[in-house]
């Protein structure tokens, strides 16, 4: 039996737009038809840009939101029919920055939540000591949380998610905004959960993080899972396709349109760097040997100075672009 099973989850929000005299209601499709399974000892990643529906999916799984359609089972319990049982079987981190009582110390915060999870004080104290050691916060445990850095709060949030030693752990963007050292230590601890045979569901928009941590990844875009599988499985979707990365100092709109019109080019994604600099990420169709030279010729024809060119291994972002036709940045702009 999988520890997490989401079946056709859907959530629609009604948002109000406009001023007080011209209010309009609009339905936003936050999540639509999301299904997946996570087994014991597996790390499952929901990868997608901001606003793709990752957090909404997590909130339905942890019973904070009631799905408009579908159901999910956590350790065999339905989020719709047995939310109370679900809550007993999960550990959750929703935001690394928020979610603490600033006028309590780190230890007091953990003791408080331990009480809500029905852990008797003596057992809670031992568990908290162990967790503070695990996340390297022992020395700061008796300081008020208001004095903590973001990295420390993230580690404390992680410790809180493990307080009740639940079989399923949900981590929503566990390394968001963290410095590399803190992010590394959180990732190390997440891998430790896998060894403890827990099922971990994490959301992220860092490709690298998903590649490094997850056994299975679901690429999510505009509320739908567009692809799901192991890292190699996902990358095999672009098997034998080549990706050229071209960095230029000048952007010309016509150039983009021209590139998109070539039949040997599958997708073109453009992202801004500093000032006028642009990075083109061009996915070529399978087995077209003339393509690289022809692409570069187009740039020369437009008189665009090329700063560098390289042929790269397809990444998860290329898979995302190939499946949705949009780069992560485009999706974020939509929100």
């Amino acid at each position, binding site marked *: 039996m999988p520890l997490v099973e989401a079946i056709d989850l859907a959530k629609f929000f009604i948002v109000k737009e406009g001023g007080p005299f011209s209010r309009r209601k609009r339905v936003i499709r936050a999540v639509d038809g999301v299904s997946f399974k996570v087994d014991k000892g597996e790390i499952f990643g929901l990868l997608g840009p901001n606003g793709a529906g990752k957090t*909404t999916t997590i909130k339905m799984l942890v019973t904070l939101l009631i799905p408009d359609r579908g159901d999910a089972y956590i350790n065999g319990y339905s989020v719709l029919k047995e939310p109370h049982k679900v809550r007993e079987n999960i550990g959750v981190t929703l935001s690394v920055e928020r*979610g603490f*009582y600033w006028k309590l110390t780190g230890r*007091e915060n953990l*003791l*408080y*939540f*331990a*009480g809500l999870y029905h852990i008797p004080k003596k057992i809670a104290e031992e568990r908290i000591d162990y967790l503070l050691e695990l996340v390297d916060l022992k020395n700061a445990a008796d300081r008020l949380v208001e004095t903590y850095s973001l990295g420390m709060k993230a580690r404390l949030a992680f410790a809180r998610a493990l307080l009740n030693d639940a079989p399923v752990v949900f981590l929503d963007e566990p390394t968001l905004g963290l410095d590399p050292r803190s992010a590394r230590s959180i990732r190390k601890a997440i891998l430790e959960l896998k060894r403890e045979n827990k099922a971990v569901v994490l959301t992220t928009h860092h490709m690298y993080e998903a590649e490094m941590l997850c056994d299975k990844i679901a690429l999510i875009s505009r509320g739908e899972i567009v692809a799901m599988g192991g890292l190699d499985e996902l990358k095999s979707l672009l098997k034998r396709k080549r990706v050229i990365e071209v960095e230029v100092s000048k952007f010309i709109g016509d150039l983009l349109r021209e590139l998109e019109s070539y039949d040997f080019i599958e997708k073109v994604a453009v992202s801004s760097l500093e000032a006028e600099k642009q990075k083109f990420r061009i996915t070529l169709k399978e087995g077209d040997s003339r393509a690289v030279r022809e692409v570069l010729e187009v740039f020369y024809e437009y008189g665009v100075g090329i700063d560098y060119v390289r042929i790269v291994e397809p990444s998860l972002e290329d898979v995302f672009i190939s499946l949705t036709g949009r780069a992560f940045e485009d999706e974020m702009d939509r929100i």
Partner: protein
Amino acid sequence: MKWIEYRYLEFKSVLTKEFLIMSRYPLAFAFFVFLPYMVAGVFYGMGELLAGPQALLIFKNRTGVEDFLSFNVIGGSIMMISIVILQMTHMTIKAELRNGTLELNLVSPASRFVIFFAVTTILSLASFGIFVAATTPLLLTAKEVNLFDYMLALIVLAVGVLPVTGISFFIIALTLKFKEVTSLVNALNSAISTLSGVAYPITVLPGWLKLVSQLLPTSHTIELIRKILMAHQRTLLAFPELWYLAAMCFIYPFLGYSIFRIIEKRGRITGEIYLY
């Protein structure tokens, strides 16, 4: 057995947390202790201005109240109870929403009723402290110090606070739904102050307002405590106010929590309760 143990652990955790947070703002409640005296001073000043040196005499003739200060301080300190419980409940829930802690409370297996009831309980205890601090000078300067009466008054206060915590569930629901309801809470507190007979007996109110004031737990609490502390009447069970209060102890928490449950469930569908 497990059920009781779990509820106890939840209740104790929230109580401890709220107590620790309050203890880190040591002056937060000091103002409320002095306010009943300030309010009495304001009313006295207004009376003097309108009626001249005869003000206290006229007040006595019209209301039968001899001890203007005790009358006002008792009324004022019970008014503080409603202000502290309702306003601080709103502020606490608002802070929970803003800090993202509310979601983490709701995602735990803890009972929602216990979580929020514990929040209002600690505020009730704080308001008890305010009542004791505000009325102790009266007790010390009274001609006849009667601790039995005082204990009786505290028991009545405990009964009177419970319906107010029921109203605070309604405030929690409104905060979850509308987020910023400070002005509404202030309006409610003003209505409670005006209609509960804080500075004058309810008997001077017009008939229909008298009826409305009967719906407020504070009206009956003030009336009963004045009877005990000022008139030294101890036949509590003979007072209809006590029975009204006892009924409100069930009706208000039930109504307040029912409204809270409806809004919380609706909020889990729309997602609006987690926004701030």
